[in-house]
């Protein structure tokens, strides 16, 4: 078996038993990268040298008989929106094309401390704004299942790296579905934890109240393992929650007796491709077999989630992205007359159209005379959505829906129609507004493209969420891989 095909838990056993070395494992992944990267283009930066240095360290540890953690020696990719000291971090933007951070994000640090092998930084929609990775200022990433199609986004490169075997797992960030939607479109597992569970320190902010880091993995067990090391209170992030760290792998069980699963009507109707809906409905049958109770429910305010999101997220973004001004770091347009010229031209050249659209949208929504109608109202709608979820969770343990209303679409298909692109996130966005955890697990194929099942948990209900996802995965028994 080719080593790059291993999961984290499979590889860990082989590393501990010295059946394989971290070096061999890393070599396998990099030779896979050599083979498929030209087609898929997952990476913006490869960190081969660093990776082999890390592998050597892990191998020395194993050789000396030291105990290693489950992530030690596991090749992993990091979305290029998380800072890693000394490694170029672009956020997919021209404005940060040559930016080299002087510090490492807490999430990446947590994993690096566990001994992961960093393969590189992955491609993404510029500043995580997009649902197709076409908004990368460098190049689009292609879906390993069909190279003419998008991998989803914004964490497209992190999804394809795992789906194409160019990394064993990866990190992404999810502001409105940027982990779950590409996971669905690439046929892998992707999770957005509860807001505040994973530190945002060092994650270049898109929309601060919605952003959350999470893993892409090949299966739910790997997701639980990764989550174990990703989370933890960080004094550097004021929004980081303090909890006793559970061992999420202990929650994995396929017995769902008595578990109540709600299906929000609002996420199953309008705009959902009928074939996708059918695939999800078929998948729900599986839950019945494991003893869960599935019932329809209604969260009426979810109909307003997309509207609220496209005010709140751009508003925060317009402020977060103000710092990219050519003064302290990043691109500066040369030879300008004065400061105003420098600002205006640097930002006009440095940012792509989607980023500009959202900055302008957010600036408009916050500006004098419009604040109450847009931003103020959107924040109130956010309250209504949270209330809807709270009510639903009084009755249900988890809620389910399709992750994405469609399977992977053609490159270029929606690029000139921002609103159509935004609709890709219609099922995932409400979760970010409410700060909830959610996961996408593969639930079959439509026209030879993977479909994702979206499971939404309660605040800090990761254990139940993973249990339901694991049970589904075990009972559904889907195991297709793209032919690359």
């Amino acid at each position, binding site marked *: 078996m080719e080593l790059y095909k291993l999961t984290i838990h499979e590889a860990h056993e082989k590393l501990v038993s010295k059946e394989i070395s971290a070096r061999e494992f890393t070599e396998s992944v990099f030779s896979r990268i050599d083979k498929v990267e030209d087609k898929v283009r997952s990476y913006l930066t490869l960190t081969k040298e660093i990776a082999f240095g890390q592998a050597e360290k892990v191998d020395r540890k194993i050789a000396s008989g030291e105990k290693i953690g489950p992530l030690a020696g596991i090749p992993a990719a990091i979305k290029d929106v*998380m*800072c890693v000291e000394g490694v170029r*971090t672009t*956020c997919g933007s021209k404005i*940060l094309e040559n*930016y080299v*951070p*002087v*510090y490492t*994000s807490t999430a990446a640090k947590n994993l690096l401390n566990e001994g992961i092998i960093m393969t590189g930084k992955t491609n993404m929609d510029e500043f995580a704004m997009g649902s197709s990775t076409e908004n990368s200022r460098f190049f689009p990433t292609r879906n390993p299942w069909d190279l003419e199609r998008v991998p989803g986004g914004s964490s497209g490169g992190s999804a394809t790296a795992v789906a194409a075997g160019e990394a064993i797992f990866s990190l992404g960030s999810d502001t409105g579905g940027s982990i779950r939607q590409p996971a669905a479109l690439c046929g892998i597992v992707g999770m957005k934890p509860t807001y505040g569970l994973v530190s*945002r*320190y*060092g*994650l*270049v*902010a898109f*929309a*601060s*109240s919605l952003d959350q880091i999470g893993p892409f993995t090949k299966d739910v067990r790997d997701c639980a393992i990764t989550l174990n090391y990703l989370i933890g209170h960080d*004094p*550097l*992030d*004021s*929004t980081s929650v303090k909890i006793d760290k559970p061992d999420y792998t202990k929650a994995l069980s396929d017995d769902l007796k008595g578990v109540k699963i709600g299906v929000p009507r609002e996420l199953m109707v309008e705009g959902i491709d009928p074939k996708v809906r059918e695939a999800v409905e078929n998948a729900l049958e599986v839950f019945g077999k494991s003893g869960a109770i599935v019932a329809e429910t209604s969260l009426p305010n979810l109909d307003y989630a997309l509207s609220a999101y496209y005010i709140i997220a751009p*508003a*925060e973004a*317009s*402020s977060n992205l*103000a*710092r*990219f*001004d050519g*003064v*302290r*770091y990043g691109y500066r347009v040369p030879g300008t007359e004065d*400061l105003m010229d420098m*600002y205006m031209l640097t930002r006009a050249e440095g940012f792509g159209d989607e980023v500009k659209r959202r900055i302008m949208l957010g*600036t408009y929504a*916050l*500006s*004098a005379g419009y*604040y109450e109608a847009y*931003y103020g109202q959107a924040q109130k709608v956010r309250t209504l959505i949270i209330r809807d979820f709270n009510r639903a969770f009084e009755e249900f343990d988890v809620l389910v829906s399709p992750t994405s209303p469609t399977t992977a679409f053609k490159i270029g298909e929606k690029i000139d129609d921002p609103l159509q692109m935004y609709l890709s996130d219609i099922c995932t966005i409400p979760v970010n507004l409410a700060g909830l955890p959610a996961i996408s697990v593969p639930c079959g194929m439509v026209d030879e493209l993977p479909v994702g099942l979206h499971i939404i948990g309660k605040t800090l209900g990761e254990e139940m969420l993973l249990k339901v996802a694991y049970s589904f995965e075990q009972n559904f028994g889907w195991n297709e891989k793209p032919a690359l």
Partner: protein
Amino acid sequence: MEYESVIGLEIHVELDTESKMFCNCSTRFGEEPNTQTCPVCLGLPGSLPVANEKAIEYVIKSGLAIGCDISLYSQFHRKNYFYPDMPKNYQISQYDLPLCINGHVDLDMDDYETRIGVTRIHLEEDTGKLIHVGGAGRIAGAEYSLVDFNRAGVPLMEIVSEPDIRTPEEAKVYAQKLRAILISLGVSDCSMEKGSMRVDANVSIRPKGSTEFGVKTELKNLNSFRSLQRALTYEIERQKKALEEGEVIVQETRHWDESKNRTSILRTKEYAHDYRYFPDPDLVPMQFDSSWIESLKAEIPELPDERKQRFIRRFGLPAHDANLLTATKAMGDFFEEAVSIYAGDPKAISNWILGDLSYYLNTENLEIDESAITPKHIVEMLKLIDNGTISGKIAKEIFPEMFETGKMPQAIVEERGMTQISGEDEIAKIIDTVLAENAAVVQEYREGKERAFGFLVGQAMRLTKGRANPQLVNKLLREKL
């Protein structure tokens, strides 16, 4: 027409915390450029703020000290605008939920008292420093500018007054009083020179008796209490003249030029700022319980008003003296230290502090704790007067040297041979000389002209360059005559 001026002050005070508002960089002043920065205060991508507890305590204490209502629920907002001294191009500040609201400062203006309302006190972060290269260091005409972010992120408290101030003098007294209060609290050193206290003034005028507000201008670059008072005086006159000549006042920001003694337009309001305030999603709200506020209240030390009352009560000072002595913490401390080592009348100490010492401090533009004269100087001088070594007149004569050099009065008196002549024999000899030289006057005296006596005393003082003990001269002269 008779006008009255309407003045409101916005006072920014850098808080004296160890670390910055949202990161743990040092707040030290005057270090090499960009040596006190980190990802947070440089606004590097991905960095996040965490609020400094001490700074919040300091603001609440300041609020308590001036009778504010403390908000039990408060929040930080982002104030969005582009400027190169601001690392994130937004300033973390407060908007509709400031830490303190509705306070007041009472002013004792000697012949009347007045209360100045304080609208709010909020907490924000300071900006970096710009150094303009070329154009004589001024922003206008500079070729380019340098940015130093050492100051970026230092906790900054903004105290906004109501437009209750009516004269430039009141403005000065209000600012000085706030400064005294904040220094007593230990929340800031309030140095206008270092920029840890910065005053902006809004001023308009209106016909006396009117309750409507005129169009206001905002004055910047008021780097001392003196410039605050002078700039306001100038600006009020400028506005009066403009109105009298039928011009309209334009809402604008004006720059005070101390050397030219005038204000000039910095910018007009044509491009109204749109700060797009919104709650900072990176910082969570603050909710305080009243017992915590109470515990902060208990930590508040004696404030200038209480001190003033104590000075009146304990030292028997007139209210006027007590008011002036407690106008700054340093002056009050000076006075108290002097009193503690002097057995005589505290009023004598007060007289010297408020008289000669204040005169020389003003001339040199110094604060009392910056001068070479210490309480020991004043007390030693008083003791020399009390034991007859020098006269009050001599004391006044030696004061400038003491002020300039910091030499102790005893030493100066000895060096300059200015001790009082109190030996009876010595004075008797001098009187003999005077009598011999002024036979005609002596004759007049004996004929009953009392005025002649004064002349003879004066001659004795002249011969001794004022060092003769005047009581002895009087006594011996009577005897001899």
